[in-house]
């Protein structure tokens, strides 16, 4: 599903450049539940941005769903994101003046689905994350956990190949963290590839594979007990 070979990325900082990713090789198969661990500055967010087509890379190859990602223009990237990827952010990133339902339906709008149909689909997904009764509430009327569940529903609504979650529990307390992680596990159990970035061990341990990054290189890549249990 995601295949990365010799990936390099550096950011210009003034006259110098900061080498963030120094040759990453990573292969994630369909249906995997992977977490990227690392302290801040390890390059994990950069990796997610490249995988999420939000940023380009300098060197190396990146295959998404067997397709080589190279020299994408914004339009192609937008279409690929809409088709293959679902995003869950640390700060939820819901649009504040749209209701939960409208937020979930937004990716479908960009997909070109008719309004009635997409609201119906969006409602189904809200039901799936247990927020059907909150469909017409604005984001600021929801708790953090609820917001993140709305964001997950929004990530899922286009039936993407991969769900990319950037510190999905970073802004949540432990109880809601568990409910969000349970939700991600459920999604994974249904066959979806889930790619989580975190710096919390407890979160990482609930995934099936942990990739540890340090200073732009992978230092370990191992399956967890959760994976062996299945």
């Amino acid at each position: 599903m995601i295949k990365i070979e010799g990936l390099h990325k550096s950011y210009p900082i003034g006259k110098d450049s900061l080498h963030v990713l120094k040759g990453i090789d990573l292969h994630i198969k369909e249906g995997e539940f992977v977490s990227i661990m690392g302290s801040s500055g390890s390059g994990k967010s950069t990796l997610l941005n490249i995988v999420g087509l939000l940023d380009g890379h300098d060197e190396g190859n990146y295959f998404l769903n067997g397709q080589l990602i190279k020299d994408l223009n914004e339009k192609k990237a937008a279409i690929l994101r809409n088709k293959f990827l679902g995003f869950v952010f640390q700060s939820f990133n819901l649009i504040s003046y749209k209701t939960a339902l409208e937020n979930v339906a937004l990716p479908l709008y960009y997909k070109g689905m008719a309004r009635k149909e997409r609201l119906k689909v969006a409602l189904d997904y809200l039901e799936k994350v247990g927020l059907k009764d909150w469909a017409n509430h604005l984001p600021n009327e929801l708790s953090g956990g609820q917001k993140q569940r709305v964001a997950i529903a929004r990530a899922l609504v286009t039936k993407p190949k991969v769900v990319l979650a950037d510190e999905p529990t970073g802004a949540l307390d432990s109880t809601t963290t568990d409910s969000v992680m349970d939700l991600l596990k459920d999604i994974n159990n249904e066959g979806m590839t889930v790619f989580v970035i975190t710096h919390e061990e407890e979160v990482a341990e609930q995934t099936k594979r942990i990739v540890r990054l340090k200073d732009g290189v992978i230092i370990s890549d191992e399956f967890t007990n959760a994976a062996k249990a299945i």
Partner: protein
Amino acid sequence: MKFLFDSDTWQEIYGSIRKNKVRTAITIIGVLWGIFLLVVLLGAARGMENGFNKLFGNFATNSVFVWTQSTDTPFKGFQEGRRFTLTMNDIDVLKSEYSDEIKLLAPRNQTNNLIIKDFKSGNFKVSGDYPILDQIQKKQLLYGRFLNQNDIASIAKVTVISEDMYKQLFDKDEFPIGQYIKINSISYKVIGVYKPSNTIDFDGDCAYVPFSTFRKVYNTANKVDWMMITAHEGTDIEQMESDVLLTLKGLHKVHPDDERAFGSVNLGKEIGKITGFITGMQFLTWFVGIATLIAGVFAIGNILLITVKERTKEIGIRRALGATPKSIRQQIVLESVFLTTVAGMLGIIFGSVVLFLIDMAFGQGEDAALINPTVNIPIILIAFVTLIVLGTLIGLIPAHMATVVKPIEALREE
């Protein structure tokens, strides 16, 4: 173009406008004010123009009036300060010499006299005239007719009087036509009553009598007090004026450079000054109106730019969710066009209402300052289309700004 008719597009625009109500309202007012000013100023200018046109309405605007004064230069043995009068001979010479330029030439003799009807009387102007006066300055007749060629030929003692004279000399409900009034102790038959023009008028309340009768009664012989000349269409009226004066100077042995000997007024030139003023005012109107409009449109661009900046993160989210740069651009441009259109329509409506009120307040009655303050619909349409085009162009700037930022940077924005 499909996106224009998509209810979702409008839903999105409604959403973002609703989010910034106050700012949207202020922006709209900016453009609204511009087009409002344009409409009102153009309408008022048109009203003034109509007012001036009405002022000159009854008068042939290509007219020149000539009279004599006294010379200021000694010439051919005559001393300066000599007084002289125009004669019928001058009239004949001018008529034959300038037959190509002169359309009508009306010699006039005037005096003031006591006019008596039974026991009522009043002092009025008496004017000896030819029937062509009616063509130079249209007489609005309430009763009867104006002088005609027969009256001239038969030296008839007939007169045409003004409405006020009629009211002053006649009893109420007394029919004037066929009655006799005494001017300078000579009886004249009233053949017509006219309503004096409330615009440009050199005569005021005046009893018109045939030129030939005036000459005989007042013994003016060949003397002519002054004359009115109108030119054919397309004649250079200023050139004609100076040519005529030069000919007259030759006939009366006046130095060609004598500035004082003849007095003349060129109505065309006087009107030209006023139309020049009106043209200037219209130019100013357009200038102010369009400048205000452009300022308003820039305000919209500016506001959208700020909005885009504020919404950078939201735009980043949308792009992460699969919005193409094109769809983002479309939405922002459409927002700009929508705002300018709404503002433009409101401005036109308010402008029309104000013009209507101006018309109610100043546009009614005889002495209206502004008559029919209106704006041509094509002009409004052009202004409106220009506005929308400007709105589109100005919207392109924030639209570009919105998509030039990489989604990753947009998302990072807090």
